[in-house]
Structures are given as structure tokens and as C-alpha cells.
């Protein structure tokens, strides 16, 4: 089966996630789709697998134009997608899940299905007990089940989205050898969506690289890793030099912190931040950088270690208390956790300003009007916040931050903002820094991290490495961070594979 994508374009609001992408996938080959977070990989694969339609562009299978309304349509044409979080039904058995989505009569044929399951799994070298419940399986086993299910439903092109996140080394080995066998012996097409260069090097024949929604590279493997990193992250502009500034006292100190992120545990994180410093937290999505921010805000518990705020342990303090001590946290999901859908701007300012029992509504409205003018928010005091645009919601969130801050914890502060709003946000944040606040922020955009950070903490595979010499002129800083994030930075491959293998499966 030969699949071709022609001029696929998809826009979300002002963001062009896919910009006239044209890619080809031939039978029997294993492709990698590389790119950093937000490069447009997932959007493209969701279009190819029928989860969302493109704004424009066509999909051709063996020269025929096809359109998909649903993932089931795509699967009927032979395209199956394995999601990062397997889309199975946890409280059913393996066999029940395998039978889901089969087009059969009213009475499913369990025995036939059981034989088919055993046969398919055996062919790929997977071991799946048909009567175990799915929620007792590891992520790796759930992936195996999903692959077997997709194949039995006739998939000829298999898309795997970050399949090696959260599975053990043996499971990865089994997965890769099964994929290689499928491609070589049965002519299946495999697309691996990943930002892990190791996996790409180990598995793939060809690589497509996306950046900012555009196709920036198409190479045959083997290609040197350095070349791929350059393609993925681009050649960034020289780092702007920061004018000399005096650092103040130590504001935040993390001592041997261990905390649990979505799929891995970050261990032995130590950091000292002084007033007036900006620390960027880099890493793949879910590597623990957001969790560390939340821990500093008292919103997430530590496994061990401690965090001190100006010498005082924050253990046992909740966020509202820390807020009064000058710590502010701004999450990336503005309407999910930041602003209150349904309340007006005036009500937000009334909520955050003042402490008395009674609310002075007139005063709150005046304050709201002042802040709206000062922060250039497009909205009125009586506007419910959900009616504001993303950029204006971010402005409102910054306007709501208390005056005298010592520590600002920001999760992706410029998510979804255009260039102008991004520049404005940073102007406001750097003004806070110059007043003596320390800033910790995460961002999927390495350029942003390199541009604004004094030091960078890179989260990768459960470790946090501090990078202090970003100004080293011999290396491109973005490229260097890219390698560290991809797991090439410390101790070589073996050390983290060993750690992985030892990690308890979920």
C-alpha cells in the first residue's frame, strides 16, 4: 500500500499546525516523523488516521483519493493508529478489547476471536493472556494488544505515536523486532512519531522532519544524529546578551527532590535560585518539569527531599499560604486552572485584591478598569473571562498577579500566543525580574528557553541536569539542549536504558 499526502494544511486559530505538507510512504518501509513539541506531527497523523479532517489537501492511497470522516473509515482503508495512551477499555479483558470494533453478527464468536488473537500475537512474538483485564497490563502490553487488534482489523499502515514512552527495555526490543518483521516480511508501512533520536536510529529507514508545521527535511537513514538535531531545532539566532545585573539572595532551594511525574519519577533534583534569576525548565512533555513547578507552588507532594523558600521549608504549606509569601504560579491551561469561566474581570480582581469580609464592588470595578488599561486587555470590566481571546486571557492572568512577588512559577507562559503577545508577556515578566523576582518557567520552545534563561534545567528520563554555560560560543545552545532532551547528554545510552529496565511497569 502506497500512501501519499499532498499539500495538507490545518490551522487552529492563528496557528498553522500543518503548512502545505506533502509526504509519501511506500510499502514495506519504516518511517520516522521527527519534530519537537508543537511541530505538527500529531496533527498530521490525526489527519492521516481520520481523527480530524484537513482544511485543505488530499490523501491518496495507491493513487486513489480518499477522505475519512472517522478513524473507522481510515481503518477500513488500512490505516491504523496506535496512540500514546492506548485507547482501550480498561475494565474489559484482553479478549473483549480485541473483539471490539469487529464487524460481526449480533453474537460474537468468542472462540474464533480467541484463536485469531493467539495466532496474531504469536506471529509477532507477543504474549497476551486473553482473559486478563486490561487495567492489570503494563503500557507495553496494552500497546501489543492494540497492535494485534489493528492488524486483525486489516491495518496495512501502522502509525505509532511515541510508542517507547513508559515501556520497559525488553518490551521496546520486542516491539521493534515485531515492527521490523512486519515491514520486511509482510510489506507493512510503519510510521514512528517521535522525538527520541535513539529510537529513530534503531528502527527507521527514512526520516521526515517537521518544524513549525513545515517539512524541513527528508533523509535516508543512517543520517548522523547531529544533522537530525539541527533539522529539528533549527539554527537559532545568537543568544542575546543580558545586561549585567546583580543577583540577590537565594529565594528557592531544592534539596535532593524526588517527585512523580505522569510516567516517570524524577530523582535527586537539586537547585538553588537567587532573586533576579530566570531559570528555564526544558524537556519533553511530561518529563517532570511541570510537576517540579507545581511542587514549588505547594500543589504537588514530593516523594522525598525538600524545597525551601528563602530558607524556610514549604512542606505542608498550601498554595494560598505561599501566595501570601510572594510565590505565584501561572498554569498553561488558562481557563482550566487560572481563570474562572463564568466570572467577569471585575469579579476576578475582587477575588484577588483585598482581604475584608465585604466586597467593594465599585472599587473592584475601578481597579479592573485601571488594570485593563494598564495591561492593554481587550475587554470590559463586566466581560466574562471566557469571552476574551487567549492572548487577552494571558494578559488578565498577568494583571492578576500580586504586586510584590519573590518567585514566579510559569508553565508555558506564551502558549498559543502570537509573536507580539509573546514579546509583551516577556516584557512584563522581565520587569518583574528586574524588581527582584526569580522566575522559573517551562516551555516546549527551546528558542524561548535559550533567549530568556540565565540557566537551564533539562529534564530527561528522570534526571534533571543544570546547564550553566549557554554562552559558550563554540556550541549552538539550542542544539545542545536538543541533544540533552533527546537523551544523548549524560552517561551514554546504557545508563538510562538500565534505569528504564529497572523501573516498575505501571
Amino acid at each position, binding site marked *: 500500500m502506497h500512501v501519499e499526502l499532498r499539500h495538507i494544511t490545518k490551522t487552529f486559530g492563528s496557528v498553522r499546525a500543518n503548512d502545505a505538507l506533502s509526504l509519501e510512504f511506500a510499502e514495506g518501509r519504516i518511517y520516522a516523523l521527527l519534530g519537537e513539541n508543537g511541530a505538527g506531527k500529531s496533527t498530521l497523523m490525526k489527519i492521516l488516521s481520520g481523527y480530524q479532517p484537513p482544511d485543505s489537501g488530499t490523501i491518496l492511497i495507491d493513487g486513489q483519493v480518499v477522505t475519512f470522516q472517522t478513524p473507522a473509515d481510515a481503518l477500513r482503508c488500512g490505516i491504523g493508529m496506535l496512540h500514546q495512551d492506548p485507547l482501550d477499555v480498561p475494565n474489559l479483558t484482553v479478549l473483549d478489547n480485541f473483539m471490539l470494533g469487529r464487524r460481526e453478527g449480533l453474537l460474537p464468536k468468542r472462540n474464533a476471536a480467541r484463536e485469531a488473537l493467539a495466532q496474531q500475537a504469536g506471529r509477532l512474538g507477543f504474549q497476551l493472556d486473553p482473559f486478563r483485564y486490561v487495567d492489570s497490563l503494563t503500557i507495553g502490553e496494552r500497546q501489543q494488544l492494540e497492535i494485534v487488534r489493528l492488524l486483525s482489523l486489516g491495518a496495512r499502515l501502522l502509525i505509532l505515536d511515541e510508542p517507547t514512552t513508559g515501556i520497559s527495555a525488553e518490551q521496546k526490543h520486542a516491539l521493534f523486532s515485531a515492527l521490523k518483521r512486519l515491514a520486511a516480511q509482510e510489506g507493512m508501512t510503519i510510521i514512528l512519531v517521535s522525538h527520541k533520536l535513539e529510537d529513530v536510529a534503531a528502527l527507521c529507514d527514512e526520516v521526515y522532519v517537521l518544524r513549525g508545521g513545515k517539512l524541513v527535511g527528508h533523509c535516508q537513514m543512517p543520517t548522523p544524529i547531529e544533522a537530525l538535531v539541527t533539522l529539528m531545532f533549527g539554527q537559532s539566532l545568537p543568544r542575546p546578551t543580558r545586561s549585567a545585573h546583580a543577583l540577590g539572595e537565594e529565594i528557592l532551594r531544592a534539596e535532593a527532590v524526588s517527585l512523580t511525574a505522569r510516567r516517570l519519577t524524577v530523582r535527586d533534583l537539586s537547585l538553588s535560585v537567587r532573586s533576579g534569576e530566570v531559570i528555564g525548565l526544558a524537556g519533553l512533555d511530561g518529563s517532570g518539569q511541570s510537576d517540579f513547578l507545581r511542587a514549588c507552588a505547594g500543589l504537588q507532594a514530593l516523594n522525598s527531599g525538600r524545597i525551601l523558600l528563602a530558607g524556610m521549608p514549604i512542606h505542608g504549606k498550601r498554595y*494560598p499560604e505561599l501566595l501570601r509569601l510572594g510565590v505565584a504560579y501561572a498554569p498553561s491551561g488558562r*481557563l482550566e486552572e487560572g481563570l474562572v469561566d*463564568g*466570572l467577569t474581570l471585575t469579579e*476576578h480582581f*475582587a*477575588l484577588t485584591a483585598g482581604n475584608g*469580609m465585604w466586597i467593594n464592588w465599585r472599587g473592584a470595578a475601578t481597579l479592573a478598569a485601571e488594570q485593563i488599561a494598564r495591561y492593554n486587555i481587550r475587554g470590559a470590566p463586566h466581560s466574562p473571562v471566557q469571552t476574551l481571546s487567549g492572548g487577552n486571557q494571558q494578559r488578565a492572568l498577568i494583571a492578576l498577579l500580586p504586586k510584590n512577588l519573590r518567585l514566579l512559577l510559569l508553565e508555558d507562559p506564551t502558549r498559543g500566543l502570537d509573536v507580539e503577545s509573546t514579546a509583551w508577556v516577556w516584557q512584563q515578566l522581565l520587569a518583574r525580574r528586574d524588581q527582584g523576582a526569580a522566575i522559573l518557567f517551562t516551555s516546549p520552545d527551546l528558542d524561548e528557553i535559550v533567549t530568556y534563561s540565565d540557566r537551564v534545567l533539562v529534564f530527561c528520563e528522570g534526571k534533571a541536569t543544570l546547564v550553566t554555560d549557554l554562552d559558550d560560543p563554540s556550541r549552538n545552545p539550542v542544539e545542545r539542549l536538543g541533544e540533552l532532551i533527546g537523551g544523548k547528554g549524560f552517561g551514554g545510552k546504557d545508563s538510562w536504558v538500565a534505569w528504564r529496565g529497572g523501573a516498575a511497569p505501571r
Partner: protein
Amino acid sequence: MGRLARWRGAALTFSAALIAALTLIAVIMLSLDKAPLAAAQRFIEGAIGTPSARADVVMAALPMLLCAAGLLLTFTAGLWNIGVEGQVTMGAIFATIIARTIPRDVSDWGIFAALIVPAELLLAMLGGALWAGVAALLKIRGGINEIFGGVALNFISVNILLSLVNGPWRVGTFPQTAPFAPAALLPRQPELRLSPLGIGIALAAFGAVFMALRSTRFGLQLRAIGRNARSAGILGVRVERNIFWAMVICGALAGLAGAFQALFTRGRLLPNISGGVGFMGVLIVLLTGVRAAWVLPVTLFFAVVPIGSLKLATSLDSAVQIDATLGNVFQGALVLAVLIGSGVRAGLAARRERRSEHG
């Protein structure tokens, strides 16, 4: 959408729902060979035709109003305090602790006689608050949804009540206490069954809740929590503390409603002492869409129904005589119809918005 248009929409929904509920009742009556129109006339006369009937309506409204006032706080904070029934029951039980010990003759108590009723009411509030506090702690510390905690606590409170009136507090052949002494009862006007003190307390409680929601930080914080507790926390609201106090205040008001039931409506403690006023409060708050300004008229409306149905049930004319539970059917049907109507209206509004966006 303007304020006027919203009002008109709400009024329209309510009238449509009222017609739907009345139609249902009429169909039921016709199928039983009763005369709906004659019954309606009889119902209205019985409920609001005489001063004593009107007094009955007002007094029946008071415990519902107290529960609805408390529930306004919890519903605003997004808490489904289904445990309100149990809180009413505990209030009645706690009031009885004092009431059953008061002798018939307290003429030599002097100034202390005037403290009996306040002490009973305070104890009742404590009982309700205690029960609500347990549900709140189960939610905050134990992560147990307030609905499940409330249902369990309702069950426990009913069994405590039954074991008391069947056991140590039982007087006579029926499972109930002896009638309370006059000094233990809520003072009332002899000619109409009206208690000015009760009316004053209920209105004051409702007014306080109304003001709290409108112009205090507590009220605004509850609204923020109800809309989005995570965001409220990030904005510096102490979510758990506010949830706790909303529940406890609601429990205290429900306890007060329980005391009304024991010390006024029934005059003794007996099984089913709450008479469902807690759930009635839930229905009222649901019907108003958690809008405090609407609670007072809706509560009065809800109080008319049982009084009127009682008059129908005791009527000698077989063409209109019908069981009083039909009134409950009417109330339930009305609330459902209003909720459905609001849902339909929201759906239509969303569709209109989508259409105006596209074209």
C-alpha cells in the same frame, strides 16, 4: 443577551413547565374519574382562601426556606449537599434533647424559661452543623463525594431517630415521644397557627445568605469554587476551608429547619420528622437555578401545594377527593419540566450562536 430577554426566557420556560405539570396532573385525575377543574378550584380555595390557610402556607414554607437558604451556599460552591435531610433530622433530634426534659409547668423558672427555646434552636443548629461537618470532612480529607457521604449519613440519621423513638425516648404505644410541654414549643399566636419568631428567624437567615452571596468575599469565593475549584485555588482562594464552612452553615440552617418541624409542626419527635423539607429545599434551589432572588416566591409556591393537596385529600366530595401524594407528583413533575426546559433553551441558544458565527 440582555437582562430583559433572559427574564422573559426564564418566565416562558417556567410557564411552559407549569402547563406541562398541570396537564400531567389533569390526565392522572381524569384517568381516576375525578374532576380536575373543580379540584383546582377547591385546591386554590383550600390553600389560600382563608387567613388560617394562608398562615398554614407561610408556616409550611419556613423550614423549606431555611433548607433552601443553606443549600444556596452549597450549590453555589458546586456541592450537592444531598445530606441535608440527615442534617434536618439531626437538628430535630438535638432540639428534642432539651425539649423532652421540659416540664409542663415552668412558672418558677423565672428568666430561664425565656432561654428554653433559644437553647433548643442553638442545639439543633449544632446538630445539623455537626452532621454537615462530617460530610464536609469526608469530602475534604477522605475524598468522598458529598453526595455519597450525604446519602450514607441520611441513612444513619434516620436509624438514630428510629432507635430513639422506639427505645429510650418512646412514650405510649406509638414510636414517638410525648408531646412537648408548651414552654418547649416555638411560641405561636393562638388564633392563627403563626409563629412570628419563626418567621423572623427564617427571613433573617435567608436575608443573611442573600447578602453573603451578593456582597461578601465568602460568597464570591463560593461562586469561584463552584465554577472552577482549581482556578479558584490558583487565584488564592482557600478552597477546602470555604467548602467546609459552606457545608457547616448549610447544616446549621437545616438543623434549624429540623427544630421547626419538631417544635412547631409536629410538637414532638416521631419517625420521618423532617417530612422531606430537605429534599424540598433541593428541588427549590434546582428550580431557581441557584438564583437567590427567586427562592422566596418559589418556596411559597411549594408550600401551597401540600396544604392544598391536604384539603383535597380530606374533602368529602368524591369527585375531587384524591390522595395528598399527588401534590408531590406535581412538584416533582414541575421541577423536571423546568430543568428540561432550561436544557432545551440552552441548546437552542448554543445553536443560534453557532449559526450566527458561521453566517
